[in-house]
């Protein structure tokens, strides 16, 4: 019984939250990696583009709520997301046309494009803050829990409860669907294959008649979809605050690089690597050992490897270690 209690404890405090957080990071990391692989620059506006997408989702959610439309137990935001995606893709294409295209055509070095993306970051951040303000917003409605801790205890008769939030399930399901669709697209369709070819070797791809304009456009469209959904899921699960989104850029970058930048599958797994290591290293294992060990051996400290204050620092340290020992990432990067 104690073993099951210990496992449920880990499931509740580590596995489920890390899986949801990892999915949110993974979507952002695939976004970064796609931009890096095809457009060839580190996009510092990632976090703010995600916050822009989330803002549009929130605005549509409010609109639908005012009309009285709802999905019952599911959050209204799910209907708002498709509309937000359309809006977001438009914004991305607009930015590309007026900002990034010039540097791409004139073949500027990647560093310059990264600098330009900082300009885009400033502008996007300003637009988001001017439209919706810098404060914390919750836009979740519908049923909050799939399984409540108390119900679970009653059901199984265990000491430890397992609470699963509906947003966590939605996050994981949506991520799985989206990522499988994306991989199917990249690996099976002609456009997807040409995208990979373009990322692998631009000149060869151009020689074989691939239209770069189309590739770039599709990349921004996919990026828009990923940014909106990733941002909206994070906002549903936690809350929407522009500053947090800006900060999330850092673990997202870490995930993309750890997975091997330019490699979408690596980025996908990288998201989970970062999320799990952040939570595993900062969790206090005292209770876990209390279940497993006999009473005489019970630990009297928290058995916490690092204090939770260093949550972000964990992912950055992993990144630095990976950069030093395997600069191409865990999965070989730079092939799409």
């Amino acid at each position, binding site marked *: 019984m104690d073993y099951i209690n210990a496992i449920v404890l880990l499931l509740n405090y580590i596995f489920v939250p890390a899986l949801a957080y990892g999915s949110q990071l993974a979507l952002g990391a695939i976004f970064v990696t796609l931009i890096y692989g095809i457009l060839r*620059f*580190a996009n*510092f506006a990632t976090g703010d583009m995600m916050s822009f997408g989330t803002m549009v989702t929130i605005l549509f959610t409010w609109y639908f709520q005012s009309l009285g439309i709802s999905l019952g137990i599911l959050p209204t935001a799910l209907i708002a997301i498709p509309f937000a995606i359309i809006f977001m893709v438009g914004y991305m294409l607009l930015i590309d046309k007026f*900002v990034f295209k*010039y540097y791409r055509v004139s073949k500027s*070095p*990647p*560093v*310059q494009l*990264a*600098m*330009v993306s*900082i*300009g*885009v*970051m*400033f*502008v*996007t*951040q*300003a*637009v988001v*803050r*001017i439209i919706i*303000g*810098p404060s914390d917003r919750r836009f979740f409605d519908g049923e909050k829990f799939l399984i409540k801790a108390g119900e679970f205890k009653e059901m199984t008769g265990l000491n430890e409860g397992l609470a699963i939030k509906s947003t966590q399930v939605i996050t994981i399901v949506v991520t799985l669907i989206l990522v499988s669709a994306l991989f199917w697209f990249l690996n099976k369709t002609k456009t997807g294959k040409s995208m990979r070819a373009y990322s692998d070797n631009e000149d060869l791809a151009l020689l074989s008649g691939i239209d770069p304009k189309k590739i770039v456009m599709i990349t921004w469209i996919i990026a828009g979809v990923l940014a909106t959904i990733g941002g909206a899921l994070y906002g549903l699960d936690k809350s929407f605050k522009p500053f947090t989104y*800006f900060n999330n850029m*850092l673990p997202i*970058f*870490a995930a993309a*690089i750890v997975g091997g930048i330019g490699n979408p599958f690596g980025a996908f797994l990288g998201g989970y690597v970062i999320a799990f290591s952040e939570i595993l290293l900062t969790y206090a294992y005292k209770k876990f050992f209390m279940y497993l060990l006999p009473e005489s051996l019970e630990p009297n400290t928290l058995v916490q490897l690092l*204090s939770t*204050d*260093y949550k*972000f*620092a964990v992912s*950055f*340290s992993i*990144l*630095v270690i990976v*950069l*030093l020992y395997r*600069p191409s990432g865990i999965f070989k990067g730079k092939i799409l």
Partner: protein
Amino acid sequence: MRKNLNVIAAYTIMMGLIILVGIFQSWNIALSIFNLCLISAVMTMGANIQWGYAGLINFGIMGYTALGGLAAVLISVDPVQEAWSAGGSNILLSLLLIIGMVLAVRYVLKKYEKSKVRTYIIATIIIAGIIIIRFVSEPGIEAIEEVNPAKTGFLGGFGLPIIFSWIVGALFAGGLAFVIGKVALGLRADYLAIATLLISEIVIAIIKHEDWLTRGVKNVIGLKRPAPYEVNLQQTDWFINLVEKFNLSKLNLITDLTERQAALNQFVIEGSSIFVKLCYSGLFLIVVIILLILTQKALYSPWGRMMRAIRDNEEAANAMGKNVVKQHLLIFVLGSAIVGIAGAMLVTQDGLFTPGSYRPMRYTFLIWVMVIVGGSGNNFGAILGGFVVWFLWIESAPIGLYLVNLTTAGLADTHFLKVHLIESVPYFRFLMMGIGLLLIMRYRPKGILPEKIEIK
């Protein structure tokens, strides 16, 4: 003279703008803008040395600034004797252990060939070291943090004049840059940018949460000053006489004696804060001028030529026998040290150290906007960038308010759009910075004052 006409014109316009602020808003605001412009100028000079001279991207400016600030605290605050006696020995022991750990790793690195076993040995040393250090330091840290937590709860500093911290801040930042440069400089440009950005976040996390050293988010307030205090100034005779002389024409208009005294008091209060700010301006100006002379000399020296050669063609410079790795490390350390000075200056001016206020937007990306806008590779351009961007950063709120009022003049004051826009005026600064950066990058990619190399 003619060649430098654009430099002179740009600086004249900039000073004119600040004087206009002084006339239309207040001299107090103008001087605080001017002081922060000077600090920003020091930061941009540091970033410019790295980016403009050597083409190294350093997105970790925030970290070095914070370390400079930390130096100001550690130098100027009086030591907390109680905390030292409570946990000082543990902390010193941990410090020794860290040094021992580093030496052990170095020994292993030197002694053995590169192999898997060596990597494992190093990993074991580090992990074992961290565990031992935690056991040693934990009781000490707890004891220190329990000493009067509302007021101190940290070890304090050395109780020296705060000016020394400007040098120590440079040493701290340079030391950190040495470590970072050793491990990260081999990375490609954009990886280096991301790595430095993340490392600076780690630095901030440590400063924020190691309360025994920095008081963390509880902030350190009331640091010593290199300038006189306003309250003391207001009671000294020579200062009151000075203010009286300055405002004699205005004071003479008032005939009533008590009213005249009240007006004089008002002038003294205003004057004291302006005087203090002027003291700071003088100190900062000295630093900026010294750095400017040094960096200009360096830029036109053989060393500067070598740096530009390395920046423009690394392989060719390498083939000519220049040690690219060593020079990159050197310039990384130098630039970061200058940023560290600026960090210490900033905390000196504020008189308080707030780890929570170090955010990448303000201390990393804004500085980069300054370098790009001003003109990378040109010291005068970098300083000008610091001035222009900081000026706009502060003044964009009033400008934004004016624009909002202008465009929504037709709407009623209670109209929701107008109210909303007026509430969001502070964020117009981000918009302005972003659009400014994009325009400069597009139409004047070398900045307002582009790099100009003359052979002397």
